[in-house]
């Protein structure tokens, strides 16, 4: 897993609540058996019109916006457990997703792929969306060590599980840790017969 410490980037706004993982990556693209190529189809049915042309109104297609931070509405990533959603967002180039609320499974999947989900207050989120829309060139600064997200003079501290934070900063994943606990796991198995 790639390490994550700090990031300074422009951001793309996605001012929609309850974005489910079926929208992030529709089921018809889940037939691959590796993790590559999902970025091409991220938000497929919102990015493209029925005739296959680009939907110019969708923010990812708006050339004013760019960057590796996605700023999304409340309850991001609900629905299916498909980790393909995290692979698609990473594949497209996102490193951070900001929202006021994340669905559980998506949040875990993101963290397991070096994609940092930052939960901010509703007020911070709506200000952030307005700021980006008014000035797409706005730079957002994320510092994982300090757990801060800053825009201009405004800053907010975000929560992250300390264990997951260490994993992100060092690029460790859970398998490494679990394998180091094999003896304890086998001992546990003996107690349950």
């Amino acid at each position, binding site marked *: 897993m790639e390490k994550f410490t700090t990031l300074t980037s422009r951001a793309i706004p996605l001012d929609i*609540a309850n974005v489910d993982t079926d*929208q992030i990556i529709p089921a018809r693209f889940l037939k691959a*058996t590796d993790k590559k190529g999902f970025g091409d189809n991220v938000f497929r049915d919102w990015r493209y019109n029925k005739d296959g042309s680009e939907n110019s109104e969708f923010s990812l297609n708006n050339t004013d916006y760019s960057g590796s931070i996605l700023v999304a509405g409340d309850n991001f990533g609900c629905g299916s*457990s498909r980790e393909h959603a*995290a692979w698609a967002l990473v594949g497209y180039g996102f490193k951070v997703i900001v929202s006021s609320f994340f*669905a559980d499974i998506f949040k*875990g999947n993101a963290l397991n792929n070096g994609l940092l989900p930052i939960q901010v207050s509703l007020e911070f989120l709506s200000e952030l969306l307005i700021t980006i829309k008014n000035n797409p060139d706005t730079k957002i600064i994320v510092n994982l060590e300090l757990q801060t997200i800053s825009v201009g003079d405004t800053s907010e501290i975000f929560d992250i599980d300390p264990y997951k934070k260490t994993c992100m900063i060092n690029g460790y994943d859970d398998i490494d840790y*679990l394998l180091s606990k094999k003896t304890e*796991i086998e001992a546990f198995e003996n107690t349950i017969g």
Partner: protein
Amino acid sequence: MTNKKTLFDKVWDAHVVDSIENGPQILYIDKHLIHEVTSPQAFNELEDRGIAVFRPNQIVATADHNTPTENQHLPIKDLQSRNQLEQLSTNCKKNNITLYELGHKYNGIVHVMAPELGFTQPGMTMVCGDSHTSTHGAFGTIAFGIGTSQVAQVFASQCLLLTKPKSLRVTVNGKLKNGVLPKDVILYIISKLGTNSGTGYFCEYAGDVFENMSMEGRMTVCNMSIEMGARGGMIAPDQTTFDYVQGREYAPKGEAFDNKVAYWKTLPTDDGATFNKEYTFDAEDIEPMITYGTNPGMGIKISENIPNDKDASFVKSLEYMNFEAGESLINKQINYVFIGSCTNSRIEDFRVAAKYIEGKQKADNITAWLVPGSKQVETQIIDEGLKDIFDAAGFELRQPGCSACLAMNDDKIPQGEYCVSTSNRNFEGRQGQGSRTILASPLVAAATAIAGKIVDVTENIETLEFA
């Protein structure tokens, strides 16, 4: 501090291997279910790192998400789909994992076949790379969906690193009205609580409505826990549960079964145990439900009108559905009906549909897909004579699989069409690009298929016994 424990606490605490200071706990996983879509990348991960599957005997595999529901004996036409199924077979063979592949007498939707085989038992921890793993909570099991990285973790260690979720209890007491099915109960609960009320929580369903429900009904309820954001839902195991498990393929036998039952009886929540959040509803308030929007929380009683809301997401949702705030859905023409999915594809669901359909004819405008949850359900449908009823009424019984619930295979609802569906998600395009899903019970779906439009099933419900 009280030492009173909830059902969830008891099962969770019995599976903690170790705890990281200020961090997650290592939770031991008893049973792991896998399917073709969310497992290949996990097998690759292990292979790349040279790690063996730790406990292959605790894993069972099935092919369900991406399988055709017609001509299952023929080679699969879609190359990518065929490749995905072949990889599952190869991976299972290489790692000594039991696989019930397409055509096997035990093949079926992962959340239908596992309980059917007695693989699901009370007091266990179970996971699967599928969010509807919450289904198995019907047995008093901690069961939840995981991502593919976690599938790899369970392959490698039979454990997961998790922070214990908070507790939530939803109590429904009273007697359900005639024609109100378990699906209506859960759609009602989600319509009241919203799609993220359960996020960060594990939910227990309590009260006599669930106590009096069959195991299949309990599975329907627990299945949709994830639609209110809860990773899982549970119902205390009781005699109904023990009777269901007893005698099944993987269930303990003889004395071993009796010992298990003695343990399972200790699992229900202690009197006086506290929950972080509690909600209570009256059974008498629940009526047959229907959804009108693009998330499962957007549900109304079938006789109600669509509410008014200025919220941008609400407006966008109605625009997608081509519905108007304030209108009724009664008499809305529908051209597609789907009875199936891990929510409603068990024998009781088809019995309800058959009971309504018997002696009637499918409306001409309707394309109806009846998709059993497993080969065993398919066999039951035939053995009980339900297929004859469906055939006579002009319905098509297909072969088992996830089918039009997520439309990964060819069972896609066309652009712009409405589908009254017994599945679990009405997200944009869920059943095919541009398709519009209306979630409902098997009774409402059957009634829609006969009328060719949405009808108020409560009007003549007293003539039918569905309780």
